């Protein structure tokens, strides 16, 4: 893909997924905490 070996493509995806995944998880944790504080989650 893109003239790159599979391992290099994996590395690029790994770095992007790591960063974007962190954003998604952090966002979920923040929302969960907010709901918990408002009494939405017991």
């Amino acid at each position, binding site marked *: 893909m893109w003239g790159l*070996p599979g391992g290099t493509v994996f*590395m690029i995806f790994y*770095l992007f997924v790591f960063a974007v995944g962190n*954003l998604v998880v952090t966002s979920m944790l*923040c929302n969960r*905490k907010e709901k918990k504080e408002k009494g939405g989650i017991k």
Partner: protein
Amino acid sequence: MNTTYLVVMAVYLIAMLAIGFFASKRIESMDDFFVAGRSLGLLVTLGTFAATFVSSSSIIGFVGWLYVSGWSGLWAIGGTVLSIVFGSIFLLGKIREFGQFTVPDLFAARYYSEKMRILPVIIILLLYIVFVTVEIMGAGKALEVLLNMDYTVSCISIAIIFVLYTMAGGMFAVAWTDTIQMFIGFGAVIASIFVALNKVGGFTAMNIQLAQIDPGLVAPITGTASTAVIFIIWNHLVWGVGNISQPSNLVRAYSAKNAKTARLGSAISGVIFVVFYFASMILGGTARILYPNLQDIDHAFPTLVQNLFNPVIGGILIAAILAIIMSTTDSVLLVIGSTIGNDIYRKYINKDANSNQILKISRISIVITGLLALIFALTKPAPVLYVQIFNYSTIGSAFFIPLMVGLYWKRANKQGAFASMLGGALTNIVWYYLGQPFGLHPVIPGVIVALILIYSVSLATEEPPESAIEMFFPTSKAL
């Protein structure tokens, strides 16, 4: 010297100073100066995190390194992404909820001991003055290469700008200039890749040409698979631990308007960070194809700028390089100012000091530190560059475990934390001077020793008083 470059640079520097003086009008208290009134919204929070994570070496150094190493060099950023994960998921929210001014404030409160303020203060002051020196040297050398300016003149000009706007506007100035600088730097790099890729025929064509020069340039790893895997794991540990433990990163959480903003700001900055370095790889790759015989790899990005862009755009790109250097240094200067003003003057010299007296001391500290660092930088102390790498690992070894364990393990006490911080830092220093036995980076034995000490010493001594840890574990009933 290109006049257009100089004019663009001068306009840019004046704009940064103007922000500093505009921000100074908003400074009425310690909260305003040290932590921007704890009012920063998501945009400025993510801007200031991103600008601080992308350090002075990012454009010139990293593009040059990728020019030589190719794609495998990109693994180096995995550790910083891991540090952003540590920050946004585990640390920054709790630090914001604690809501003081400095990292020593946090240690002193969590470990109910003034000794746990003094030890980090000593570590920060010793290492951060060197940090500022290195950044002034980096900026001086960048201007020397890019504008053909005299090194001494470059360093003096840069030091004056750094000190003036940090001193005047505190965290407001730092955060706003960081955000503007991040957008200029980021925009400049993204714009550059389109021009550079167009020149070599596109992304796939770039990779094919790189493989023709040397197949290793497009390979995911260098050396054998086992050495590469070890390199990747160590790299994640070293930068993962070292970056997030930096007080200049952690204090940003105090400035955010709430814990959610601090955490999301950091997490979004992680995505920007990866995009930025991916773009840097493209610049390194295209420079390798277009200018394969550069004598100095640090000239890769400046050469692209000088050859691919008209002088006005080129001037903006050079300003972007300076922007990235400035955004790291101002943060470090502010940490030094707040450490001296808040952790030394307010706590030990004048306990009845009012806000104005503390601000005055902090501002004087910033000027003196800038002056000292400038004097060191003018002597061009080569070993200082090595000390910069050592700085990160020492702070990581000293702070990471007492910070992380302290926020998640109620049983951690002041004796354990003190032993851990001191033991981690000393192990790192000794390991470094022993020449890194077994090829292990000093931060790895440093963190292992720190972990063993905090666990064993805490369990061997008395439990922390409930009243001391209540603010960090609000639902705590009994240990």
